[in-house]
């Protein structure tokens, strides 16, 4: 399902002293199977934007078109559409409520009106996606799991609806490196295996460098840049001017280049940098 956002504007508390413009004339289009990263400083409108993409917020003006259909049109079944566009909120573990992990994951499919057998199959599928052992965890209470596990249960709760577009708002916030790696690996796999379109909001440029095939940069409710990670991360000045970093590897690369090392300008992944450094090292030792 391609998603098209055109001239989207959103104001909070319209018509009062507290009026704030959260989104200002935002336009872009997302094709099937893309892995898009949305980056921006706190308060740049990222979270507001993703809530528009499945109709939880209504635009003040502008449109969100899903499959060519206006999400806020009069005769659109928003509940049905929402199930194709899975949205994982920030800290999704706070939405868990059931007695067991399996029941909690089943909440979404149950709302879709599936049969008991289908629901069970979906729960197993979703738990497998997030690497939680069905035998071991299905009957446990979600509240006795670790933070990282709870988050994976919550993400499974959205995946169980088999959305064709998955939107995640800061899925790795507040997790330790291992928990973060797990989630990112899981998303990578999901994107490769099921060809799910993924839209991820994040602060972490390193996460983005690893996963995204396209980046949308937001600042003050506006899209300030839209392109491949390579294009974006080469504009270090623009990124620092809106309060963002470039990935660790890209920064190191830039500093080494400044010292006269022969490195390409467009490195932003640790593995790429490692390869190049090894090459230089070998050439150096060959002499």
């Amino acid at each position: 399902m391609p998603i098209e956002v055109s001239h989207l504007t959103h104001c909070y508390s319209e018509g009062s002293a507290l009026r704030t413009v959260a989104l200002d004339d935002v336009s872009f289009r997302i094709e099937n199977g893309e892995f898009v990263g949305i980056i921006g400083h706190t308060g740049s409108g990222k979270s507001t934007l993703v809530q528009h993409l499945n109709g939880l917020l209504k635009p003040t003006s502008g449109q969100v078109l899903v499959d060519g259909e206006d999400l806020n049109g009069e005769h659109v079944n928003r509940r049905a559409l929402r199930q194709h566009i899975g949205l994982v909120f920030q800290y999704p573990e706070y939405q868990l409520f059931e007695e067991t992990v399996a029941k909690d994951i089943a909440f979404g499919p149950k709302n879709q009106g599936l049969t008991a057998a289908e629901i069970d199959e979906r729960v197993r599928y979703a738990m497998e996606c997030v690497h939680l052992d069905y035998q071991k965890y299905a009957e446990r209470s979600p509240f006795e799991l670790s933070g990282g596990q709870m988050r994976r249960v919550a993400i499974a709760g959205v995946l169980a609806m088999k959305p064709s577009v998955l939107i995640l708002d800061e899925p790795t916030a507040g997790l330790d490196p291992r928990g973060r790696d797990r989630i990112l690996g899981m998303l990578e796999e999901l994107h490769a295996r099921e060809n799910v379109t993924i839209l991820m909001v994040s602060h972490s440029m390193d996460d983005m460098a690893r996963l995204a095939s396209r980046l949308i940069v937001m600042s003050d409710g506006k899209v300030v840049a839209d392109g491949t990670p390579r294009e974006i991360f080469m504009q270090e000045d623009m990124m620092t001017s809106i309060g963002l970093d470039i990935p660790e590897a890209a920064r190191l690369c830039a500093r080494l280049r400044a010292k006269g090392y022969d490195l390409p300008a467009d490195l932003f992944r640790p593995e790429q940098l490692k390869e190049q450094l090894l090459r230089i090292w070998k050439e150096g030792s060959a002499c």
Partner: protein
Amino acid sequence: MLNNITMGQYYPVDSKVHRLDPRIKLILTIVFIVIVFMAKTFLGYAVILGFVWLTARLANVPFRMLLRGLKPLRIIIILTFLLNLFFTTGETVWVQFWVIRITKEGFLQAAFYSLRLIFLVIGTSLLTLTTSPVSLSDGIEILLSPLKVIHFPAHELAMMMTIALRFIPTLLEETDKIMKAQMARGADFESGNLLSRAKAMVPLLVPLFVSAFRRAGDLAMAMESRCYHGGEGRTRLRVLKLTRNDWIACGAMAALLALIILEGIFL
């Protein structure tokens, strides 16, 4: 969805009225309520209306915001008007139709009582619109502190109020977020009969309670680790001091009181 509920309807602009001492504002509001009850004629109400209008102007609060405070009470106000209109006995009959009998006295009394309610609401709204919840509970704490002699927990009460008020927006935001998260999973809060609607609240209430308790625990821990031990010997960051404007406000209210007393004697 939930952002049209304004809790603690503080209107955050800067003005002379906003900067008044919360203690003075609390006392003056109580005096104002007494004045509204003392007024006996429409002329008195005209004076009060002028006073309220002037205060609202000074406070930079649009009149629309004041009227918004009336909305939840509109049924009571309308009911008061209608009951007085139909059931007051009087001489000058205006309309007589079947069992309905509207007299001039009835109409005047109905208008008078409804106006009284409206003034009470507007007067107290002015207090809550111009005083932030925190300084309001500060004011309440100080005004109640003489009662500490009889072991009335003034500080604890004010602290509880402050915390409760502080967390209302947080919990509202949380509710909004959980609601949206469950809606993203296909939950339906809006349709169905009473039973299925009540059942639909479970996925909302359980996470909300869990997070409220978690927050309460965190807050208690944070307060204790900063050596909070109750009100005894505690000093304040913002010491309340009376300024010239506070005395002017008192003078203005005293003038209004005097006018209304004179009105009671001479009219």
